[in-house]
């Protein structure tokens, strides 16, 4: 009952404040739209050098208008990528399609890949001669990071969800401490665990609403491509939101006012963004990639990738979901312990 009372109070406080409500519900959508605009359709038409393609495919690629295709020899095509006159080269060699980019450029590369996929897909019913499979992109410089909105979308979902809930929870707890209401709360017969559970539940409700809105918005409005279950996506996001609640509350111990919570952004949020899988962890030097193992956003993004990109089921993301749950439990436990400072029992 006490847990319930605290939960209801937290919800009332949030719904009573239009600014906070907007931060939770509207701002994530706004930011996702912005990033979608930055990474998504631009109207840019990349140039593609083609060599030795079956005539049907070449015509199709040219006619669709997604790219400007120029026919030349294989050597010329490769050279044109190198000197920058073409954004990409596509040729047929040993019965296989090859696709070459100069370097990984999220915007241009995805446009080329999309145009090629579209052309190949439309040719499937006609029976493409030689049965070609989609090429694995090759790069003159650098490795593939494959970072269009489709492949970055899940990282954004995770990072944004964590970010907003962390800030709100941290600030709410700092206010509770500095406003002495926490002390007043602990003068009542409430259990310390009920205080933490009430807070987690209250923010959990908003995390759930926020995550559902974000996922549905990303998929339906922004057209984030997904192969997996939306319910599973929301589950992962909610667990991430709960861990952000618990970690935000924990961080508030080290903050004396709301502004100091903001100062924690570079400490608690930015590293998690870097280690979210946006940058390939295997390429991070000195084995620092293992740091990701202590970051909830990493597990959430990993799980979101498995679900959204690979279409994985519950069992596929069980390890990540388990780790997220472990973060929630660990930090909630720490928060209950910390309240001992105010009351020993």
């Amino acid at each position, binding site marked *: *009952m*006490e847990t319930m009372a*605290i939960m209801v109070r937290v919800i009332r*406080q949030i719904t009573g404040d239009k600014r906070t409500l907007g931060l939770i519900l509207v701002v994530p959508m706004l930011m996702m739209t912005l990033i979608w605009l930055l990474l998504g359709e631009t109207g840019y038409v990349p140039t593609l050098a083609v060599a030795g393609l079956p005539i049907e495919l070449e015509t199709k690629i040219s006619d669709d208008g997604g790219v400007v295709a120029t026919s030349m020899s294989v050597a010329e095509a490769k050279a044109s990528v190198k000197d920058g006159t073409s954004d990409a080269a596509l040729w047929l060699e040993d019965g296989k399609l090859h696709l070459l980019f100069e370097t990984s450029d999220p915007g241009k590369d995805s446009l080329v890949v999309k145009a090629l996929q579209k052309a190949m897909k439309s040719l499937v019913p006609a029976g493409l001669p030689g049965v070609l499979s989609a090429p694995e992109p090759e790069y003159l410089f650098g490795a593939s990071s494959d970072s269009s909105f489709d492949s970055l979308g899940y990282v954004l979902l995770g990072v944004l969800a964590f970010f907003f809930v962390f800030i709100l929870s941290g600030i709410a707890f700092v206010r509770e401490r500095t*406003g002495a*209401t926490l002390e*007043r709360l602990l003068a009542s017969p*409430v259990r310390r665990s009920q205080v933490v559970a009430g807070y987690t539940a209250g923010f959990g409700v908003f995390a759930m609403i926020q995550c559902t809105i974000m996922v549905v918005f990303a998929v339906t409005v922004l057209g984030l491509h997904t192969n997996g279950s939306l319910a599973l996506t929301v589950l992962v996001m909610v667990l991430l939101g709960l861990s952000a609640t618990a970690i935000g509350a924990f961080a508030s111990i080290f903050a004396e006012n709301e502004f100091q919570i903001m100062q924690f952004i570079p400490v608690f949020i930015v590293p998690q963004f870097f280690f979210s899988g946006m940058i390939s962890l295997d390429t991070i030097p000195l084995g620092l990639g293992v740091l990701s193992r202590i970051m909830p956003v990493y597990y959430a993004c990993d799980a979101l990738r498995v679900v959204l990109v690979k279409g994985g089921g519950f069992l596929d993301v069980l390890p990540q979901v388990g780790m997220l749950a472990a973060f929630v439990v660990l930090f909630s436990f720490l928060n209950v312990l910390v309240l001992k400072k105010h*009351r020993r029992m």
Partner: protein
Amino acid sequence: MIGVRNVFKSFGKEQVLRGISLDIPAGEVYGLLGPSGSGKTTMVRILAGTLAADSGAVTLDGVPQPNRRSLSRIGFMPQYDALYNDLSGLDNLRFFGRLYRMDRRRLNARIDDVLELTGLGADRKKRVSLYSGGMKKRLSLATALLHGPDVLLLDEPTVGIDPVLRRTIWEEFARLRAEGRTLVVTTHVMEEADRCDRAGLLYGGHLIASGEVGALKASAPGGTLEDLFFQAAR
């Protein structure tokens, strides 16, 4: 009823309480008097169980504190208004009432009672951030009285309250005492000590005197409680 035995408390290097022992009998108004910085608030927080003493013991009817069951018998009004500014006065009361496991009917009846007593009935739906300082103080008192506790720990309950309301509030204290409740009230206003049955005088973390207010005055060289502080200061 309330027993304090040899309580010490420091914040960092600063020793705030240096071996306080006192007894507060049931059904009386006990005034904890002293200048600011003398340790009154620290003492009350330790009594309320929201602050742990470094050493020493506090008991309520012989039960060592803090104890969760005892907490529901205590009403605590902290020095600074511990209220949720972004909620209405009514929502604040509802929230605290539910923490004390009050059922809906009793809670609603009690909310009406304490709002009437503190004169906040008309402002119950207003957000606390719009309350004046005195109104916040009254709401803070209302939350302490809400669950009908038999021990009330009130830290500077009448600071910032106008004289008329101050009188009403002291009349309410007298009524609560008549019901057999125990009140511990801190104040640095010596006139308020006259309304207490018993008083403890805190100075520099020591209890320099305690006992019935009349007897304390009689023992003072000039016949007032201030004289006892002047004596200690010398």
